[in-house]
C-alpha cells in the first residue's frame, strides 16, 4: 500500500518533469549512435548489439537513479517520510518499482533502436526470451540501483561516487543479460535455449538484492 503510494509519487514526479523522457531517453539514443561510430562495421554491430543495449541501459540507469534521489534530497522529502514513521522497506520497494518502470521503458526503446540501427532480427521464440530477460534484469537493476542510490544520497560528491559503487555490483547483470539477449537475438550463432541459465542468474540476483535492500535500506537512509 505504502510502497504503491511511493512508486506512484515517483512516477508522477517524472510525468510532471519529464526528465527521463526529455533527457535520459535521448541520451540513451545518442549512446547507441556513438557506439555505431566507434564500431564502424555492420557485421560487428549485429554481433555485439546485445552488449551495447545493456551497456546503454546501465549508463542511463546511473542518471535515472541520481534523479530518483535528487527529488528526495531537494526538499528533505526522504527525511519527512522517515519522520512520518513510514517503513523504510516500503520506501525501498516503492522507489525500486518506480525505477523499474522507467528502466523498462528505456530498454524497450534501446531494443527498438538496435532493431532499426544495428539490423538485429530475433525469431518468435527469441522475442519471448528477450522479454523475460528484460523483466528479470530490470527487477534486479531496480533493487540494486535504489539501494546504492540511497547510500550515495545525502552525501557530497554523490554524482561521482555512484558509478564507482554501482557498476561493479551490476557486473553480474551485464554478463547475464548480455548472454541471454545474445541467445534471444541469435547473435554469433547462439541458440535460444542457451539463454535460460543466464536468466536464472538474473533471477537469483534480483531476489538476493531485493531481500538485502529491504533490510539494509533503513539503516542507510536513517541519518
Amino acid at each position, binding site marked *: 500500500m505504502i510502497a504503491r503510494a511511493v512508486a506512484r509519487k515517483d512516477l508522477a514526479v517524472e510525468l510532471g518533469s519529464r526528465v527521463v523522457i526529455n533527457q535520459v531517453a535521448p541520451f540513451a539514443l545518442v549512446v547507441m549512435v556513438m557506439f555505431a561510430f566507434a564500431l564502424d562495421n555492420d557485421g560487428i554491430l549485429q554481433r555485439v548489439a546485445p552488449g551495447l543495449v545493456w551497456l546503454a541501459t546501465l549508463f542511463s540507469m546511473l542518471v535515472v537513479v541520481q534523479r530518483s534521489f535528487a527529488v528526495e534530497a531537494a526538499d528533505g522529502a526522504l527525511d519527512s517520510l522517515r519522520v512520518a514513521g513510514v517503513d523504510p522497506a516500503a520506501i525501498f520497494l516503492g522507489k525500486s518499482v518506480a525505477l523499474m518502470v522507467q528502466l523498462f521503458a528505456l530498454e524497450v526503446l534501446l531494443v527498438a533502436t538496435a532493431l532499426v540501427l544495428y539490423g538485429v532480427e530475433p525469431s518468435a521464440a527469441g522475442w519471448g526470451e528477450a522479454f523475460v530477460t528484460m523483466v528479470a534484469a530490470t527487477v534486479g537493476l531496480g533493487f540494486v540501483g535504489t539501494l546504492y542510490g540511497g547510500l550515495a544520497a545525502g*552525501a557530497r560528491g554523490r554524482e561521482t561516487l555512484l558509478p564507482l559503487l554501482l557498476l561493479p*555490483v551490476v*557486473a553480474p547483470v551485464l554478463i547475464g543479460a548480455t548472454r541471454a539477449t545474445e541467445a534471444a537475438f541469435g547473435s554469433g550463432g547462439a541458440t535460444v535455449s542457451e539463454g535460460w541459465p543466464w536468466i536464472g542468474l538474473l533471477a537469483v540476483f534480483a531476489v538476493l*538484492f531485493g531481500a538485502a535492500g529491504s533490510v539494509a535500506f533503513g539503516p*542507510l537512509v536513517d*541519518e
Partner: protein
Amino acid sequence: MTEHSTGTPATRRLGFVVIVLMSWLALSGLWWSSEDVVQGSTVRIMYVHVPAIWVAYMAFGLTAVCSATYLSGRTRSIAWDRFAGASAEIGVMFVAVSLVTGSLWGRLTWGTYWVWDARLTSTAFLFITYVGYLAVRRLGGTLRQRARRSSVLALLAVLEIPLVHFSVTLWRSLHQDATIADPNAKVQMDGLMLFTLFLGLFAFTALFVWMVLHRQRVIHLEDTVADRGLDAAIADRRDEVAK
C-alpha cells in the same frame, strides 16, 4: 608518555618479529629455495603473490566481521568501525600487490600481462569494490554516519563478491587450478619451496596484524583531531560572540 606515538611495547615487539620474518622470507625465497623445473626463477614471485592475496581475503573478512559486530552490538562502539576501515585499507593495498605481481608473473609465463580469466577478473572487481568502500568512508558526516554507512556497505560486499565471482566463472575460466587448495591433487612442491610459501603466509599475516593495529590507532587520532577541531571552532565562535 606515548600519547603521540601509535606504538606500544607489544606492537614494537611484533614489528621486530615482522622484520625478522620478512628478511628470512627474502633470503629463503630469493636465494635458498631452488628454481622451478618448468618456470625457473619466476616461481619466486609466488612467495609474495600468494601471501598478498591471502592477507587481502583475511583483511576483507575482518572488515565484514567488524562491520557486522558494529551493527549488531548493543554498545555500537566506533572502535569496530575503525578496525573495519583499517583492515579494508590494508586489504586494498595487498590486492593491488597481488594484481601487480600476478600480472608480472603472467607476462613471464603466459606472455601477457592480463587474461580475461575468471579469477583475475573477479579479483579486479574485488579491488574496485573496496576502493569504493574506502571512498564511502571519506564522504564526511559524523562518525556514527560513517560507521553505519560503511558497515552496511561492507556487508553488501559480502553478498556481491560471491555473485560477481560466480557469474564471471560462468563467463569463462582458464586459470591454473589452485595447487595446494585442491584436495585431490598431490602436492608436488619441493620441501623448501613449500616451506618458503608457508613462511610467506605467516610473515605477511604478522605484517597485516601489525599494520592494522597501527592504522586503527592512526584513525583514532584522526577522529580525535577532527572532534577537537570542531570543539575549538565552537569555542572560537563563542569568544567572538562574547566580544
